[in-house]
């Protein structure tokens, strides 16, 4: 029986504490932004404008890398504010046809399955990435049910398109659908989903009736169980942090934990951790071609200089946008879960 949760649009209001910004000692959200060179004074003026709901050049220049959500150490939500204001002021971060294209992409089609009868825990949601179904196998994922498709699409991507209201419009039915499967706990393949059902929903006061598990947290736990079977890979890797990981920085330590467990060395480089660069995909989508080329070049050169053999991805979209560039520099692109499978001696189908 399909249950309807009582969620309405008015439930979704950003919890943003203006006072925190008024008394902020650093304005790090904007000062640390890697795509705008702002000093503290300018950052303060622009932030104050935005806090008052006014227009700011930041709304036009933001590449939507989500990083300011992490740079703010005071628990505020500068990027969610930016995104809401972009929409309020009809500022389009991308050309209209790209926005249309992505809005349409999220609408379920006849081919999408709403109810995965027989799916039982442990369960993993592949979001909109059915192409990874065949990689969810082997010892790491023994016994897992997979759910996938537009009825499980977390919608958070619309933050990149200046259309956060779409997230709010659609999210309740996604949450309902997952809940109606009776899942108490669900592993999210894409950390954008994880961040949606944790950071984003918390910021907007949306109740989520299931526990979200970050893929890396799951992988780490499972690898610990299989520790005896791990053959250290002894390779040097660069890690490409995705934008959505900025919404869940508390899970970042699992990257190092996993690397330690499977015997890979995370190379020391300039653009890593809080200082990591966007994969470039969204910047290209914003049609900022020069910036896109520059960001990708700096990122990849940094990997090359650090002698990385692999570039490890968390996000399939980052993989799609950056893998060609790393391959051209003889660095092998690989998803984290596939790297883990290699450490277990499993063969990865290309």
């Amino acid at each position, binding site marked *: 029986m399909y249950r309807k949760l009582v969620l309405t649009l008015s439930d979704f209001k950003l919890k943003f504490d203006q006072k925190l910004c008024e008394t902020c000692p650093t304005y790090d959200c904007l000062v640390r932004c890697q795509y705008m060179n702002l000093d503290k004074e300018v950052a303060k003026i622009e932030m104050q404008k935005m806090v008052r709901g006014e227009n700011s050049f930041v709304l036009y220049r933001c590449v939507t890398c989500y990083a300011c959500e992490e740079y703010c150490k005071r628990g505020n939500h500068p990027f969610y504010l930016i995104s809401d204001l972009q929409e309020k002021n009809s500022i389009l971060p*991308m050309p*209209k046809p790209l926005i249309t*294209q992505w809005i349409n992409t999220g609408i379920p089609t006849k081919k999408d399955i709403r109810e995965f009868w027989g799916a039982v825990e442990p369960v993993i949601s592949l979001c909109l990435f059915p192409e990874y179904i065949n990689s969810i196998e082997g010892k790491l994922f023994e016994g897992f049910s997979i759910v996938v498709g537009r009825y499980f699409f977390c919608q958070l991507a619309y933050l990149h398109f200046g259309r956060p209201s779409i997230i709010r419009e659609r999210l309740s039915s996604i949450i309902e659908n997952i809940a109606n499967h009776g899942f108490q706990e669900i592993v999210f393949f894409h950390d954008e989903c994880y961040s949606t059902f944790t950071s984003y929903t918390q910021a907007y006061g949306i109740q989520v009736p299931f526990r979200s598990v970050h893929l890396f947290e799951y992988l780490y736990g499972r690898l610990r169980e299989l520790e005896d079977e791990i053959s250290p890979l002894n390779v040097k890797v660069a890690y490409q942090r995705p934008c959505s990981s900025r919404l869940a920085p508390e899970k970042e330590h699992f990257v190092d934990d996993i690397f330690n467990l499977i015997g890979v060395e995370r190379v020391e480089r300039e653009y890593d951790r809080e200082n990591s660069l966007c994969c470039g995909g*969204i910047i290209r989508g914003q049609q900022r071609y020069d910036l896109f080329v520059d960001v990708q070049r700096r990122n990849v050169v940094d990997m090359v200089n650090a002698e990385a053999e692999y570039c490890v991805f968390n996000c399939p979209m980052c993989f799609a946008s950056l893998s060609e560039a790393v391959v051209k520099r003889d660095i092998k692109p690989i998803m984290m879960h596939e790297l883990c499978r290699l450490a277990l001696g499993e063969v990865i189908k290309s």
Partner: protein
Amino acid sequence: MDRVCERLARIVGENYVSNMKEELYIYSQDPGMMEPREPDYVVMPKTTVEVQKIVKLANEEKIPVIPVGGSLSLSGLVIPHKGGIVLDLKRMDKIIEVNERCRYVVIEAGVTTGRLKAYLEKHYPRLRFSIPDAPPSATVVGNIVIHGQGHLSQQYGFNSDMVTGLEVVLPTGEICKIGSCSVSPYWFSLAPLPDIAGLFLGWFGTTGIITKLGLRLYPRKKLRDIEVFIVEDPHLVPDVVYRVTHTEMAEDIFVNAQPYPPIFKDIIMMGICITGDSEEELEFKRRMIWNVLRTYIDSKEGGFMMTTPDVKRALLEMPITGTTRFADVMKGGGFEYCGPIIPVEKYPEAYKKLLELSSEYGVTYGNTCRVIGRGHCMMFAFGYPFNRADPDNMERTKKALHESNVASLDIGGVPWKPEVPAQKMIMARMDKNTLELMKRIKRFLDPNGIMNPGNWEG
């Protein structure tokens, strides 16, 4: 075996002639809408002399002859509307010569696009031809005969503009060479002689049988990439094409619109292919193209799509196999498109009509257009896959195709590879003296009217 069959067997050998029901059935239809009709005989010659003998026999017996390549032109052009001998040319599959320095190839009539592509990739990796997106079993000659277009058409025009010479068997049986090869051992060009190749191009085999073809080859660069510019407003398409063609940086330019999957709904995609021997060359071209479209980007009316490597790979295929997969999207094995050649400026009108017809007749559509020349014109496909097992669906598709042909002519275009009814529509609007000239040429070349009858008959 009847008398004609025996005579044919004496020419080509018993294994290569048939009047068996099951074989005639295969040659009675193509994937399109035209009514099937069985031939009386199917014959597969191996040499020009065999073709010549068959044509002479057909004249004596007054039997129609229908030359057939891959049978993929879709508009019933190989259906023997009046019965007769189907001349399947697939056994004439020799690649006779590649002149690397002069960049041309000489092939027999049955060489398929797939085979020529594979051959060049293996033996002449620096050369390529303008491959169409038809399945690889389509013949190069069949494509030339219908004025096909391929991946190099934006740069060099219709594929038939790339002909450097022909060997033809005239409807009366003479073997005739056309172009430099009629005077010299070299097949480098049609010029500087009077151009009579046109007597055989666009005529659908009604004026003779091409047995050999000389075709231009072009440099094959090491790298190939694609940028996909998207807009919502069809009125922007002609100017985008104009700007991009002005840069002279693009290889193929195609324009696609389709309702499925959702990522393609409500938008128009312009695929702009670029090639280069180095990353620098590619990057230079890419930037030129981005720059020239900057005003549309700044106004937010258009932008380059975020393409994943998978999408790129699919769009960079040659031929693009997605086109063939789409052709069978309704299952049941039916596909036809009305692909008029139109002025690029008429794109918005054609697009509007396509949407109207799709909704009026409740048929799904796929629209692929290919820019020909530097924006000189474009092929606009009103493409309708249909289910042959569903008569209602077939009937609606038939009406949509008919209306598409009417609309194409109304907007100033000319249906490409038209089926017989559309040929009649064209001829009804054609300048009377032109039509008369066509008739005279046809009567002169084919006095017994044996060549692919039904086609181009006024």
